Each structure stands twice: as structure tokens, then as C-alpha cells.
């Protein structure tokens, strides 16, 4: 049951083959059975069973959506009313959110069942899920490998069948890279497509929530619920939401695919390159035309990203000060002591590193050299994409330079860790939608293909991914022991 698609499960629920309570219980059992993967920070068992019961009633009344009664899980970055919301940090270990994020509210309205809150890098800062206060998540394909990050708990849970699908967020690759490393389908929507209200901010101009699922079709069903204007988020965009599922079957003959030569340079593992080439070949067979494009400013993406994201996070994380909620140090002597120890003890190393970088970049005398320059680079990168996307329909390439690396392998070397996001970060700077879907296996670990589209072309990306998934079965493969 844990490997079925949303539509199959919805059919089963409607036909009475199984109830949502049974389905939910089955997932709760699996979560317990595979707790060593450390996917969940909080399992909301009682709440899930209550929601499942309500979903069964709703299905009985004939008032169900495709997601009614489907057990899903939320990345622990989304505020969930009455449920602990930690963002992977000690500083929020005691924080019970008093309100629901818009995304959570929308899933509740659709009638889905929340199994719990998923592990993640602390404040979504990390590419390996190792910065979580709650410990590293293990990759179900290789328990000694990282699942990717920051939505590592989400990716691992979906891959291991510990949730039908899950939410993720992507600031520099945090949906796509773990999706690639865990062999699932993940989509980072256009900036502004999904409301950020109630999604704890890391870098506000880059953060975007999106679906992580077993297939493009499941991702389309999720995005249908998540997308749309929210008056509580000024940066959400007031554009109609297309019917994502309806467009999945459109033929893609004549599709123009661009391959940026900068995506296939020296840093790319040759086996991964071979997987991408094979996937592109599959598209050629489906009638696509391939063209080389260029992103001359791509190499500037990582430094620009770390200036902008760090600058924004240095302000976003100021509210965690031990005054109103969250962790407060014991027996503070005075205000300064309260601040320095609450934050010093509450934040992990990577978070502190980025706050310091951002504070430095915004300081008097450095602002122009760092922040302003990074914004200029950001524009150049956007222009590169704009130009390329005027020549082709979509851009394809790798998600990450290699398959999942080992736990502990890069955590001591932040620069090397940052470089592993080279193919994903530029897309966030440009605000474009992009997805990752399984396209092969290297050394027993899955590798994803990245598809980048024009603004608000999520329907096109899902269509293109779905067509590939009709003629291949990479997305149907499960890690050993989780079949």
C-alpha cells in the first residue's frame, strides 16, 4: 500500500477497499518500524487517526478530494497549530505553533491526514540534513549516505514509504537535491507561486515551498492544493492556478530542450553525466530537440547566493532571542547575557556561521561590496536564464554533481558542501520553477534529472516529467527493504 500513487489510493478509499484509518495506521506502523532512518521529528499519531476518521466520514458523504484521507507529512518548517514546530533547531524545541501555515491550512481543507513533522537541516541551512538538532537522516538507499538537504526528512520519508508524499522547501536546492538523492520527484515552484505564510523564513527572497512525491502526477496533485495567491503573503502572485493534472498527458513532441554547457563541466561526476545524457536521449526519442545554451554567469551563483541568503537570514533569525518564545538560557544575568547565551546555546554551528556571514555582508562599509554586488550578480544570472529560455522551452541538467555522499563526509568542510549546490542555487536566484525526478542509479544510489522552466511553467515541467515517467520506471524503483 505504501508504494501506491495518490490516485490509486484515492480509488481504494472511495471503493471501500481500505479506510483512511487503516491506511494511516499502516503508515504509522511503518514509521515506527523504520524509525532508525530518523525521518520524523514529531509523529502526530493521535491527530493523524482523528483526521483519518474525519476523512473517512467525508469520503462516505461523497465530499472527498483526491487528497482526502491520504497520509502525508509536513516538513518541520511549516507552522502547524497545536503541534511542535522546530525548524530542526534546539531554539524552537519547545515551540508549539499557535497557527497553521497557509500550505498546512490548504492540505487540511483538502482533507489529507498529517502523519507528523519531518526532519530537516536546522532552519533549512544545509545540503545533507546533518545540521539538524534532531540528528542526521539516513538515506533509505544507503544508510550511511546523506539523504540530501535541507528537506532530507521529506525525501527519505517518501522514498521509504513513510508518507505518501511530503512538503518541502527550496531556498538553494533543498527540494531538488534530496529528491535526487532519494530517488523521488520534487518540484520547486516559481517564487511567489506558493504562499510563504507560516513557513519559517530562511532567506525570504529565495524560499519557496513545493511538493515531494513518488511521481510527477502525485506532485501535480499536491501542487494543485499548495499553489495560489495568499493575501497574507505580499510576495505571492495573484495569477490563476492551472489544472496541473489535466495537462500531464499533453504530447511533448517538438519540445526544445536546452543543455547549458556550464552544467556539464569538470565538477560533474562522469557516471551522473551519463545518467543525464541517457535521460536526454529518452526525450529525444519522445520527439524533443536538443540545443546547447550558455549560462556565462553561473559560476557566480554560489558566492552571490551565500551573500544574499546569509544577509536575509541574519535578520530573519533575529526574532529568536529568548524573549517571547523558544529556547531561553538558564538564569540570564542581564539582557545581553540573555541574548548571547539563548542564541549561542540555541543555534547550531552552520546557522551561526550564516548569521555571522550575513551580518558581516550588511555591515557599514561592506554593504556595497557584498550585498549590492550580489544583487547585481543575481540580475545577471536571471538575464542568462531569460536569454536561454527565449531560445528553448526548458533547460535540463544534473541536480547535483554526484549521487548522495556519505554521512560525515563533507560536514567538516562547508565550502565543499556549498559547492554541491552548484546546479540548483542559480534557479532560486532567478526565481524560476525547476524539478528533479529519478533518471538512473549510480553506485546503488539514485540520481535525478533537473528540468528548469520559465516563470509559472510548472504545468509544463510536470507534463514533461510525466511523459518521461510513462516510458521509464526509475521513479517506481524502491530502495532495498522498502519495496
Amino acid at each position, binding site marked *: 500500500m505504501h508504494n501506491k500513487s495518490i490516485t490509486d489510493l484515492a480509488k481504494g478509499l472511495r471503493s471501500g477497499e481500505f479506510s483512511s484509518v487503516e491506511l494511516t495506521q499502516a503508515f504509522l506502523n511503518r514509521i515506527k518500524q523504520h524509525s532508525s532512518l530518523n525521518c520524523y521529528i514529531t509523529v502526530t499519531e493521535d491527530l493523524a487517526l482523528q483526521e483519518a476518521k474525519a476523512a473517512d466520514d467525508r469520503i462516505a458523504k461523497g465530499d472527498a478530494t483526491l487528497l482526502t484521507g491520504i497520509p502525508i507529512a509536513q516538513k518541520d518548517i511549516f507552522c502547524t497549530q497545536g503541534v511542535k514546530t522546530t525548524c530542526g533547531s534546539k531554539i524552537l524545541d519547545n515551540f508549539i505553533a499557535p497557527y497553521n501555515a497557509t500550505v498546512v491550512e490548504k492540505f487540511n481543507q483538502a482533507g489529507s491526514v498529517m502523519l507528523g513533522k519531518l526532519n530537516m537541516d536546522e532552519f533549512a541551512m544545509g545540503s545533507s540534513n546533518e545540521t539538524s538538532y534532531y540528528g542526521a537522516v539516513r538515506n533509505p538507499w544507503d544508510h550511511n549516505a546523506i539523504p540530501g538537504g535541507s528537506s532530507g526528512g521529506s525525501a527519505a520519508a517518501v522514498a521509504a514509504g513513510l508518507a505518501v508524499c511530503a512538503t518541502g522547501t527550496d531556498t538553494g536546492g533543498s527540494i531538488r537535491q534530496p529528491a535526487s538523492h532519494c530517488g523521488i520527484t520534487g518540484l520547486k515552484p516559481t517564487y511567489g507561486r506558493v504562499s510563504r505564510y507560516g513557513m519559517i523564513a530562511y532567506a525570504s527572497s529565495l524560499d519557496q515551498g513545493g511538493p515531494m512525491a513518488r511521481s510527477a502526477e502525485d506532485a501535480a496533485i499536491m501542487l494543485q492544493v499548495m499553489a495560489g495567491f495568499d493575501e497574507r503573503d*505580499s510576495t505571492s502572485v495573484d495569477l490563476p492556478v492551472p489544472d496541473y493534472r489535466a495537462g500531464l498527458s499533453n504530447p511533448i513532441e517538438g519540445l526544445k530542450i536546452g543543455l547549458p554547457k556550464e552544467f556539464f563541466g569538470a565538477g560533474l561526476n562522469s557516471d551522473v553525466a551519463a545518467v543525464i545524457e541517457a535521460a536526454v536521449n529518452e526525450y529525444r526519442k519522445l520527439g524533443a530537440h536538443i540545443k546547447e545554451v550558455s549560462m556565462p554567469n553561473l559560476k557566480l551563483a554560489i558566492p552571490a547566493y551565500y551573500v544574499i541568503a546569509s544577509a536575509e537570514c541574519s535578520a530573519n533569525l533575529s526574532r529568536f532571542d529568548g524573549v517571547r518564545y523558544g529556547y531561553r538560557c538558564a538564569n540570564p544575568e542581564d539582557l545581553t547575557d540573555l541574548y548571547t547565551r539563548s542564541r549561542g546555546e540555541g543555534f547550531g554551528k552552520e546557522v551561526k556561521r550564516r548569521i555571522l556571514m550575513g551580518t558581516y555582508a550588511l555591515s557599514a562599509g561592506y554593504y556595497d561590496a557584498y550585498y549590492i554586488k550580489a544583487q547585481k550578480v543575481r540580475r545577471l544570472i536571471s538575464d542568462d536564464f531569460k536569454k536561454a529560455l527565449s531560445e528553448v522551452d526548458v533547460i535540463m541538467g544534473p541536480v547535483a554533481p554526484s549521487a548522495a555522499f556519505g554521512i560525515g563526509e563533507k560536514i567538516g568542510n562547508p565550502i565543499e558542501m556549498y559547492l554541491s549546490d552548484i546546479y540548483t542555487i542559480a534557479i532560486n536566484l532567478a526565481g524560476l520553477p525547476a524539478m528533479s525526478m529519478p533518471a538512473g542509479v549510480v553506485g546503488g544510489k539514485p540520481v535525478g534529472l533537473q528540468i528548469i522552466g520559465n516563470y509559472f511553467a510548472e504545468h509544463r515541467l510536470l507534463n514533461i516529467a510525466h511523459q518521461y515517467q510513462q516510458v521509464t520506471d526509475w521513479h517506481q524503483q524502491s530502495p532495498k527493504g522498502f519495496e
Partner: protein
Amino acid sequence: MEWEAVIGLEIHTQLATKSKIFSGASTAYGAEPNTQACAVDLGLPGVLPVLNEEAVRMAVLFGLAIEAEVAPYSVFARKNYFYPDLPKGYQISQFELPIVGLGHLDIDVDGVKKRVGVTRAHLEEDAGKSLHEDFHGLTGIDLNRAGTPLLEIVSEPDMRSAKEAVAYMRKLHELVRYLGICDGNMQEGSFRCDANVSVRPKGQQAFGTRAEIKNINSFRFVEKAINYEIERQIDLIESGGEVVQETRLYDADKDQTRSMRSKEEANDYRYFPDPDLLPVVVDEAFKAQVKATMPELPDAKKQRFKDQYGLDDESTAILTSSRPLADYFEAVVKESACEARICANWVTGDLSAALNRSGLEITDSPVSHERLAGLLARISDNTISGKIAKQVFEEMWQGTASADEIIEAKGLKQITDTGAIEAIIDKIIANNPEQVEQYRSGKDKVFGFFVGQVMKEMQGKANPGEVNKMLKDKLK
């Protein structure tokens, strides 16, 4: 050496919006602590600000009123600093691109007119309050005020004396209340002033080093604080010292300023554009829409009151000191058909005195303009005399009856029946032969005695004009 002071003011006006600048919580003053702070005001994880359009409208209205350039494109920025009553650890403000650019305000000091430049005005959110009393050595935080919209109005360093500074501040205070964008309540902190003060030898072009005096909350204190600071700086320099750039606090009890923090201790606020908010775009259509709601401004109203009603400077100044008072006066003139000067005397005289005694604003006056007009109409049609009117007014102040009802009930109607008056006059002439003799022998002053006697006999209700005329005839 002769010294010259250079003064610039930064004035924080709380905008009179119903809800906060970035949330839907109420801005009403005086609620129980932390009952008017929603998730956004508390700075909970994940919340986002959404700009209140009304605050933008008010800022634009102000910009148009001071003939400033209203920015077609302005940007909110984060001003970063830690303080317990600043929930997010940053204040959302405007920095490089404020909504209102260079404008001006004309002041008048001792009959000398002067134009003071307004550098800029920008929108920002207020912080909460730290409460240091009643918490046994701890500090309480009240976030009701957090997120209240402020318009910070920054002047050019154009003022040269404390008097000019106060004149500017008063002018601004009058203007924002005229525009209806601020209630001007200084006790509640709706209108707060920081003063930048420096001195230089008269004739020198370059500015001296300035000190900023923070949070002065009355006109009187602004004047005293600036005067103290000017003296302090001159004394310091003349005794061989040097003014340091710093922030100072005015202590009203001791009437002096003292150092709060030096420039070196000043925060680096690390301003950068707030990525949660889009740039504010004000197009011509919006500006025109706002302009259409522009009320008559104080200077124009003063001129009109002089021209239209023939009022003197003093009455004009009082009547136009607030829009509700000016409106009240004009309503009384219109409804009473009474001479404007008499209406002005009543509004600035008896009515204002009664309001002052009761500590009421014109908007809370127990005697509405309709009722006062009803009274003045009876003066103008000779139903009652001015003297009786004062008596009627006191009755009106205490109750709800109209002037006509009181006049009727108390029988205060002026007697214009010449027969009745004549009879009384005859009686009084007959009873006071001595005084008649005195009058006839040229002692004009005695005339007043007869008027008084007649009025007394008639309980003040006789028409004074009629009494005078008839007395003169009879005493010939």
C-alpha cells in the same frame, strides 16, 4: 563671540489608521497589555507583513500638503537591532527611498515669516513598550504599540532658535491634525520629537558638531531642552572643550540634557530592503485620488477667515487652531445668521471658557453648534440681550434644552412693548426726583442709573435700545 544655533527636528507622528501598518490588529490606545498584538506583531516564526494601504494614503496626503515630491517608487527596509520590545529584531522602516521627498513648511515667529525645509518623511512601524515598574526588578513587555504606523518627518537644519523650532513643531502639529492623519496627542506619544542641535560662530558656513536630543514630548520641553543644549554647547566650546556627536536625553525635572550614548556606541543598523514587502508604487491616479480629499489647509483657512468674516488676527488664530473648532464656528455663523464677529466672540469667549473649565475638546462640547446657533439667532433678532444670552448659555451647558425652550420656560424674552417700558420709566422718574434734577443739570453719568433701575425693574428683559431711547425722550 556671537554664536548661532542650528536646529533640525525629527518628528514621529503616529498615523491615525484603525489597524496596524503590517497587520490587522487594532491601534486603539490604552488596551490591556498584549491584547492588541496578533501573530504578526509578536514576530512569531513564519509570519509576514502586509502593508496597510491607509497608511500609504496618509503619507501621500502629507507629502502633497507640504508640496513635497511624493515618490513614485519607495522601498521598505529592515533596520536591525536587538531590543526586547522590538519583536522581530528589526524594525521595518524606509531608508534609501522614502515615500515623501523634499518639501517645506512656512512658520511665523514674532511676525517674521520663514520657510523651513522638510528633507523627507518615511513610513515605519513603531516598537512595543518596555515596562520597568511593578515587575520586581524584571522588565515587562507590552507589544500593543508594536506595528503602529509612524510617519517620521525629518526637517532640514533650517531653524536658528528654540523659538523657531517650537513654531515649526506647532505648525506641523496643526497640519497633521488638519489632515486627519494623526490625533496629535503628545501625552499618549502620538507626536514625538527628536532635536538635532549644534552651534557655530555667527557667519560661519560649516555646521558645528551636533547632539541629538531624543524623545521630547511637549512643546515646552522642546523649547527648554534646545535652549539648555545651546547654552551647554556654547559654554563647552568657550571653556576650551569640544562638542561630541552623541545622543542625549532631556530630563524635564532637572531641566538639563545628559549623554545617553556616543557615536562610537551607536548601532550599525545594517539596513537592507525587506524581501517580504514589494516596493510601494504611487501612481498619478492614486495621487490625484488622495489630492481630491485634501482639506483646506491652515494658512488658507486663516486668510479666508480674515477676508470672509472680517476677523482680527487673534480670533482667527484661535478659531483656526483646529479643524473641528473652525468647522464649529462656520456652522454657527451659517445656522444663526448672526454677525460673524459676534459668533467669533461667543466661540472664542464663553464657549471656549466653558470647555476649558470642563477640560473638554470642541468635539465633545455639550452645546452643539446647532444649539449655540439657536441662541445667537435670538440675540440677532432682539429676542434676548447679550447679557441674558449668557444666562441662557449656562442653562444650555448644564442641560439639553434649546435656547428657545429655556427663554420660553424662564420667561426671558426681551420686552419690546413700549407701553410696558414707558410705564416703568414714568414710575422711576417719579420716584427719583433728585437724580432727574442732577441729570437735567448736565450730569450725564446719572443716565446709567436710570437704565440700571429700569432693567432691574424689568429683570433685564427690556430691550436696551428701546429703554435708552425712551429714557432720553422722557428726561429731556
